[in-house]
C-alpha cells in the first residue's frame, strides 16, 4: 500500500496484542488490502473480520511437502549419503516471506545432526488452486519438513538393519569437538553437543527400562513404541551477505533510551505475539546495564516509533533483536564508562564494571552507579560528549544459530481400535544460553502441542474438486488439554559462540522436533506388523487402513 501510494512516511501501522502468529500472520491477505483501499475510498475506518471458517478455507497453509527420502549407509549403519526429492504445493501463490536467495527456505538443513558428507536435495514447487501456501508455520522456512525427512528416514534405517535407533544416532552424530561444522549443503553449524542431549533424554525417560517393557508387551501382543528425534534447527535469519527479503537485509534492531530517572524505554523492530519479548528483552538489557528489568519498558509494534526491523517469525527475535538489545546496551555501557572516568577523575582503564556500577580498580568505595551516570549524561557530561543516554543498534548476525534437541516419546496403541496414547514425552532442548527459563519452557510446551498436532490430528483435506472437507474446528482437530500429554522438558546448554550473549532461538524447535519423535514411536509400536514408515498425520483410522491394505487384519469383519 505504502509502495503504491509512494507515501510510506504517512502510513502508520500499529499492532497491539494480536493473538498468536505462528507464521499465519506473515502473508499479506487480500482482506488487509481491501480494507485499506475501502478506507481510502470512503474516508472512514474499516475493520476486516475473518471468521474461523474463512480462516481455515482461505488463510495460508504450510507443510504440503511431499518428500521422497533415501538414505545410504554401511551394513553397520554408518550413514554415507542422503537424497531428498520434494514436490511442494504452494497453493495459488506463495505466501511465505522467504529469504530471496533461498526459494526452498532452509530445507537444505535436512542432513541433520549426522556426520556424513554427501547429500542431494531437489524440490519442485507447484501452484495449485489451494489458498496461498508455503508459509513457515512455526518453523524457520521449511525446517520442519527437512527435519521430518531426516529423522524418520534415520529410523527407517535403524528398523531395517535391526539396530537400536538411539545407538544408530550415537554412532553417527557430529561430535562436540567437530564444531563449527560444515554441513554437506554448506551451512556452518555453530555449536552443539548432541550426545549429551540424547543421553540426558534417555536417562530422564528410562530408555533401557522402556525397551525391556516393550519386549514383555510384544510377547503379549500389546503395541507399545518408543520414538526418538535428535534434530538440528537453523534459526536467526540472517547474515546480510546471504539473507534479504526482496532486497531488505534481514537484520533486526533495538533502540534504548534511558531517562534521567534511570528508567528506560527500549524499542524493537520485532513484535511479540505471546513470546514474551517484553520480559526477555528487558532481561537482556538489565543484564548488560545493571538496571532492574522492571525499570525497562519494552515497546514494539508501532511503525512511528519502532526502529526498522524484519519482524518476529522463524525464531529470529532473540538471535537478531535480542542481540541488537545487548549490543545497544553495550554501547551505552561504553558511554557510561566514559562519564564514570570523567566524574571519578580516573582513566577508563582504571575502571571496573560490575552489574549496576563502575568502580575504581583497587578502590571500590570510589564508584558511580549506572543511575548516577545516566543522570550525569543529562546534567554533567564531559565537554565534547553528546548529551543524553540512548543508543540504537542494527544487528547483522555473522551466522545463523543452530539450536538442537533430543526428544523421546512413548506411545501405547490399542490393538483393536488403534487409538494412540502418548504416554510420555521428554524433550531436551539446547538453545544455548537461556535468558528466561520459564519463557523458554513455555515456548517448548506450546511447540510440543503444535508438534503432536500435525503428527496425529491436523490436516486440511480437500475433495477431488478442491472443496475443503474440514473447514471448521469440528473437523480440523486442534488438540485439547486431554490429547496433549504432560510434557517433560529439560535442557543442555551449549552457547552459540558468535551470538553476543550465546543464545540461540528456541520457539520453533519443539514444532520441528516433535512430529518425527511421535511418528517414529508409532512406527516402532507397529514394527511387529512390518511397518517402517507412515506419513503424518498418523490417525487410528490410517493405521487401520495401512494394516488392512497389507492384508494384516482379521478377515472376520468382511461382510
Amino acid at each position, binding site marked *: 500500500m505504502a509502495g503504491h501510494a509512494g507515501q510510506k512516511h504517512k502510513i502508520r501501522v500499529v499492532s497491539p496484542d494480536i493473538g498468536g502468529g505462528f507464521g499465519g500472520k506473515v502473508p499479506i491477505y487480500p482482506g488487509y488490502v481491501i480494507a485499506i483501499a475501502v478506507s481510502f475510498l470512503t474516508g472512514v475506518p474499516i475493520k476486516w473480520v475473518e471468521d474461523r471458517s474463512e480462516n481455515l478455507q482461505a488463510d495460508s497453509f504450510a507443510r504440503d511437502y511431499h518428500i521422497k527420502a533415501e538414505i545410504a549407509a554401511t551394513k553397520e549403519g554408518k550413514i554415507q549419503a542422503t537424497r531428498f526429492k520434494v514436490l511442494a504445493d504452494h497453493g495459488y501463490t506463495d505466501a511465505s516471506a522467504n529469504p530471496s536467495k533461498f526459494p526452498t527456505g532452509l530445507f537444505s538443513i535436512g542432513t541433520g545432526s549426522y556426520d556424513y558428507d554427501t547429500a542431494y536435495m531437489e524440490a519442485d514447487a507447484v501452484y495449485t488452486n489451494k489458498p496461498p501456501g508455503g508459509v513457515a508455520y512455526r518453523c524457520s522456512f521449511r525446517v520442519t519438513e527437512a527435519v521430518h525427512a531426516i529423522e524418520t528416514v534415520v529410523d527407517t534405517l535403524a528398523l531395517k538393519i535391526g539396530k537400536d535407533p538411539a545407538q544408530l544416532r550415537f554412532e553417527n552424530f557430529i561430535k562436540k569437538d567437530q564444531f563449527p561444522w560444515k554441513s554437506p549443503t554448506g551451512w556452518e553449524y555453530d555449536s552443539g553437543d548432541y550426545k549429551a542431549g540424547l543421553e540426558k533424554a534417555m536417562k530422564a525417560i528410562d530408555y533401557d527400562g522402556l525397551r525391556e517393557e516393550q519386549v514383555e508387551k510384544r510377547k503379549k501382543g500389546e503395541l507399545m513404541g518408543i520414538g526418538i528425534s535428535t534434530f538440528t534447527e537453523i534459526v536467526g535469519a540472517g547474515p546480510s551477505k546471504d539473507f534479504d527479503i526482496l532486497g531488505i537485509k534481514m537484520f533486526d534492531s533495538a533502540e534504548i533510551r534511558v531517562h534521567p530517572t534511570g528508567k528506560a524505554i527500549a524499542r524493537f523492530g520485532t513484535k511479540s505475539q505471546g513470546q514474551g519479548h517484553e520480559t526477555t528483552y528487558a532481561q537482556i538489557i538489565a543484564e548488560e546495564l545493571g538496571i532492574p528489568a522492571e525499570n525497562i519498558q519494552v515497546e514494539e509494534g508501532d511503525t512511528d516509533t519502532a526502529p526498522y526491523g524484519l519482524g518476529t517469525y522463524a525464531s529470529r527475535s532473540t538471535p537478531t533483536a535480542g542481540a541488537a538489545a545487548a549490543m545497544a546496551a553495550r554501547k551505552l555501557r561504553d558511554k557510561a564508562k566514559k562519564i564514570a572516568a570523567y566524574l571519578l577523575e580516573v582513566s577508563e582503564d582504571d575502571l571496573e564494571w560490575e552489574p549496576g556500577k563502575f568502580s575504581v580498580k583497587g578502590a571500590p568505595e570510589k564508584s558511580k552507579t549506572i543511575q548516577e551516570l545516566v543522570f550525569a549524561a543529562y546534567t554533567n557530561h564531559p565537554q565534547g560528549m553528546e548529551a543524553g543516554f540512548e543508543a540504537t543498534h542494527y544487528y547483522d548476525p555473522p551466522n545463523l544459530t543452530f539450536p538442537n534437541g533430543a526428544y523421546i516419546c512413548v506411545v501405547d496403541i490399542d490393538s483393536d481400535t488403534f487409538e494412540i496414547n502418548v504416554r510420555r514425552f521428554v524433550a531436551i532442548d539446547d538453545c544455548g544460553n537461556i535468558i528466561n527459563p520459564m519463557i523458554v519452557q513455555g515456548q517448548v510446551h506450546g511447540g510440543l502441542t503444535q508438534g503432536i498436532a500435525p503428527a496425529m490430528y491436523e490436516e486440511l483435506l480437500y475433495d477431488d474438486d478442491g472443496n475443503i472437507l474440514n473447514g471448521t*474446528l469440528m473437523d480440523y482437530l486442534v488438540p485439547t*488439554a486431554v490429547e496433549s500429554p504432560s510434557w517433560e522438558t529439560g535442557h543442555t546448554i551449549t552457547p552459540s559462540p558468535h551470538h553476543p550473549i550465546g543464545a540461540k532461538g528456541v520457539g520453533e524447535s519443539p514444532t520441528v522436533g516433535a512430529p518425527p519423535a511421535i511418528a517414529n514411536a508409532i512406527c516402532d509400536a507397529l514394527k511387529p506388523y512390518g511397518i517402517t514408515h507412515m506419513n503424518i498425520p498418523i490417525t487410528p483410522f490410517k493405521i487401520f487402513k495401512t494394516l488392512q491394505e497389507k492384508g494384516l487384519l482379521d478377515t472376520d469383519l468382511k461382510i
Partner: protein
Amino acid sequence: MEIKIKLNGTEMTADVEPRTLLVHLIREKFSSTGTHIGCDTSSCGACTILIDGKSAKSCTILAVQVNGKEISTVEGLLTAEGLHPIQEGFKENHALHCGFCTPGMMMRAVELLEKNPNPSEDEIRWGISGNLCRCTGYNNIVSAIKYASAKIRGAELPSTEPKFV
C-alpha cells in the same frame, strides 16, 4: 427486544434483535472485549463466560435467553482486593502467551474450582477440554489452576519455578 442483565454486578439494559448472540451483546453493545470469539462452531471456548455462575459458550446462547440473569466475564475477576486467585495463578505460572484463550480458560476454571475445589491433573485437563489453547501446550494452565485451587483453599501454594528433567 428490551433485555436487562447484570454484567459483573452492574445492571445493564439493551435493545437487541432475538438473533443477537450473547457474545456480540457483551463485546459490541457492552464493549467488554475480554470475551473473545475464536470459532463459529462452538468448539474453542474463547467466548466462555458465567451465566448465574455456570460456564457457558456465549457464542451459542442468544442474548434474549439471559434476560434477568447474572453474567460474569473476565473483566469482573479483578476486584478491589486485587487479582482473582485464578488470575494470579495464570500470571505466576506463565499460563498465557498470546492471551487469546485466557479469558475463556479462566472463566471456565472459576466454575471448575467452584465445583471441585481440589481437582486432580486429569480432572483439570478434562475440565478445560472445551477450551482450545494454541500457545501454551496446556502444562502451565494446569499448574495455574492447581495454584488457584491451593490459594482458594488456603493451602500451601505450589512452587511456580519451572520444573526441568
